């Protein structure tokens, strides 16, 4: 499903992968990202996400931490250990709000760390500016 209501068009659209085990949150993020004209895919855990990334590497991932099978930290580490994916932007979106977790996420190679519940405007802003740089 492609949202390009505002006629926002690019030769190459930025690809975004949403990774979260809560279907409602995936749904909300999908709506937001499509509205901004990004190409969106989703995965509900780390393993699913990894195979999706291997299929086609996205420009940016929105990553939840608490997930079954492979959690966000582990996935983050896996992505950063592959040089081919070193430019991939990682935004952690999590309900884990403690400083220690934020630090751990950043140390493992995440670019941004946003705690839930988040402001949709701020997240969109953050993603846009991250993709422009």
């Amino acid at each position, binding site marked *: 499903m492609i949202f390009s209501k505002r006629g926002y068009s690019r030769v190459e659209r930025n690809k975004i992968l949403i990774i979260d*085990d*809560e*279907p*409602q*949150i995936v*749904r*909300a*993020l999908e*709506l*937001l990202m499509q*509205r901004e004209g990004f190409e969106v895919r989703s995965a*509900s*855990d780390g393993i699913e996400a990894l195979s999706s990334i291997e299929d086609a590497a996205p420009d940016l991932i929105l990553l939840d931490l*608490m997930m*079954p099978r492979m959690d966000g930290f582990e996935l983050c580490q896996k992505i950063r250990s592959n040089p081919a994916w070193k430019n991939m932007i990682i935004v952690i979106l999590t*309900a*884990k*709000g*403690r400083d220690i977790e934020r630090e751990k996420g950043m140390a493992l190679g995440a670019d941004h760390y946003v*705690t*839930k*519940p*988040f*402001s*949709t*405007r701020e997240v969109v802003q953050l993603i846009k500016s991250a993709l422009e740089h």
Partner: protein
Amino acid sequence: MLSEWVILVTSFGYLGILFGIAYLGDKRADAGNSIISNPYIYALSIAVYCTTWTFYGSVGRAAVSGVGFLPIYLGPTLIAAVWWFLLRKIIRISKTFRITSIADFLASRFGKSAFIGGLVTVIAIAGIIPYISLQLKAVSSTFNVLHLYPALERVPKSVEITIWSDTALYVAIIMALFSILFGTRHIDATERHEGMVAAIAFESLVKLLAFLAVGFYVVFVLFEKPGDIFSLAADSAPMSMLTHMKTSLESYSSWFVLTLISVFAVMFLPRQFQVLVVENVNEEHVKKASWLFPLYLFAINLFVVPIALAGKITFFGSSVDADIFVLTLPLTYGEKFLALFVYIGGLSAATGMVIVETIALSTMVSNDLVVPVLLRIKALQHENLSSLLLNTRRLSILLVLLLGYLYFRFIGEAYALVSIGLISFAAVAQFAPPFLLGLFWKGASRRGAAWGLSIGFAIWMYTLIFPSLAIAGWIPISFIDEGLFGIPALRPYHLFNIEVFDPITHSVVWSLLANTGILVIMSLTGQQSVQEKIQAKLFVDVFKQSPMLRGSPVWGGTARVSDLTGLLVRLLGQENCNRALERYERRHGISLSSIKEADAGFVEFVERELSGAIGAASARVMISTVVEGEDVSIDTLMRVLDETSQVIEYSHRLEEKSRELETATQELKRTNERLKELDRLKDEFISTVSHELRTPLTSIRAFSEILCDDIDMDREKRRELLNILVTETERLTRLVNEILDFTKLESGTYSWAFEEVDLVKVIRESLRSSGQLAQSTSAQVSEQLPRKAVMIVADRDRIMQVIINLVTNAIKYSGENPKVEIRLHDEGPHVRIEVADNGPGIPHEEQERIFEKFHQITDRRTGKPHGTGLGLSICKRIVEYHRGRIFVQSSPGHGATFIVILPKKQVAP
């Protein structure tokens, strides 16, 4: 056969050698270069146990009763095995308190009782005199045999000759002089008689060699092959019994009793106590001696049976006394020098015994009988007593030997060597109960010991000594056969008409039973004096004494130094006194001349020095005469004991306190750990709860913002988003409720309403409540419930909550066509509720953990909304509050069955 002169010269020559050895030993000891300080000499000196009784008597006994001579050596061998444990303790006590004799030991143990000391001395003298007479008999008769052989009929019977032509008298006198020269050179009885011990060890060697020489001669020369004797003996019926044991009650009891009294004899005979304890140089020597001594006993008994058999064969039909086979065998076969050597061996056995025994007895007589009397004589109050004491000892030696001679002359001829010895053993056995009980049981009391000893001694006299007087013709023989006053129950060999024992066994059984019984009963029922308690503790706990108790300043009173040194001079002589005082000054680095008032330490020192000379009981009396106030004793002792016991009590309390503190600290540590754990759990809980709350909040916020931003959204889409919002809000509400429930259950603030409820009804109602969910998911819910009501005591609402939760879970987590069945079983005191579904099942490793809070199993396939992770955890707590159990049975792919077991009745929670 041998001329009198040869025998006499040899005898005196041998005694001269002994004296030379003793002299050398003393010289070396004075030079600080002891020759007896090694375990071999120590073990040999213990072999003073083997007297002429062993040397001649064993063969005599073997000739009559076969191996019946063995118990006398079996006992010592057995007890030697525990010497390291037993003897070492006795030695430690004796060295610590300067014990001079067995009488001193017992007196000291039972509150430094002069009465006990005196009593033990009297028993010892009465008991030992037959034993000494036995030695005199052996020496004089072997002298005569050697001299007159083969005209044995000319060996004079003592009744036929005047005292003045009796060899035994001269033997007694010579031995007395010899003992006096040996043993009474020093006043301090605890000072070791090193020369004497050296001579005794030498004698033990000589008697062993002499006996082995006869043995070798008989077995290898006379009979060529050892087997010959036995085969010859076996041919003669009356002799074959010698190599076999009799087996009757009498012989068993006799074996046992002989073994027992020889155990006691080897420890408590005055001479054994002397060599084992008083003359011991080093506790370590006990280790080696405890196998060397039994080895010696084995060696000296090796040839007893062969010699006895050889004698029987040789003198078959003649009237030669079996007690002198050892001597007559070599004589018969013309071996003069071997016979002379045997005679010297016998002389060794006799002199060794007599010297040590009389020295030990003389110490006891002077310290425990004479000194207590002397101290009461006013005229002697300021005399110098040291030479008087020495002379007392010399006189006692002479007296004891003369008494021995008189016994020999008027009674002893009637008995064989062994029987005389056993009478002595039976007397000495009386020391065993107070000694052994006193050594290990603090409760053994002075009164108990005194009465036990007295009665035991009286029974011994009545059952062994009086009959011997009757046999010797001094009292009517009817005493034995008809009993005292003709009462059969008072027959001395058959008290209370017991007929199964031989006289020795009979006497020992009765006297030891009475002795021990009285001691135990009176100790248990009576009170101990303070002095007794102190001594009991010092003795029994000798290995665990703190230095504080060791040097316990028992004298709290005051005394002048000059008075105390005066005592020392009186009892020890000027020279010894000066030596002792110098030693004290050196050790404590003080000069006594500058001190007037003696401190407790000095009083203690003087008392110990005096104890060494005159025994503990008398020393105590002496000291009390110069320490201010006659009755220093009890009050002071009380106080000292109180102080001591207060200190002990105090340290006990301290120990207890520190133990309590330690326990409290541990408790605190544990509590702290628990608190930390709780704190961590609380943090985790809050963190988890906030995480759980954030998830629905995130959806709600995101969708609300999307709806806000996009007013023009088409209806279909808007409905979808609004539905999500409603569901998420419901979820949030449920979550908050459950958290509240859970915290209430956790903290115990939930108010329970227990009542009697019909579980069938409760289940039906629960099913109705979850009916909506069942409809919306088209789940089939079936029930299997009893027709009758099932009454249990429970909180109705909570149980409903559990059932609804289980049913809801079952529906939610089941597959495409959810099938749920609820069953109820009445199991007597319990009910069993089962909720079964046809879902994917729960992996084995998850089955326990699903009941933990916030534990969720994810179902990737359905993607259904998660629970809060609290539902089952709440169920578990509710069920457990009802004292029931909840668990799950499942194998993956075959559904899961949740089982709740509840008791019907509730005890008040």
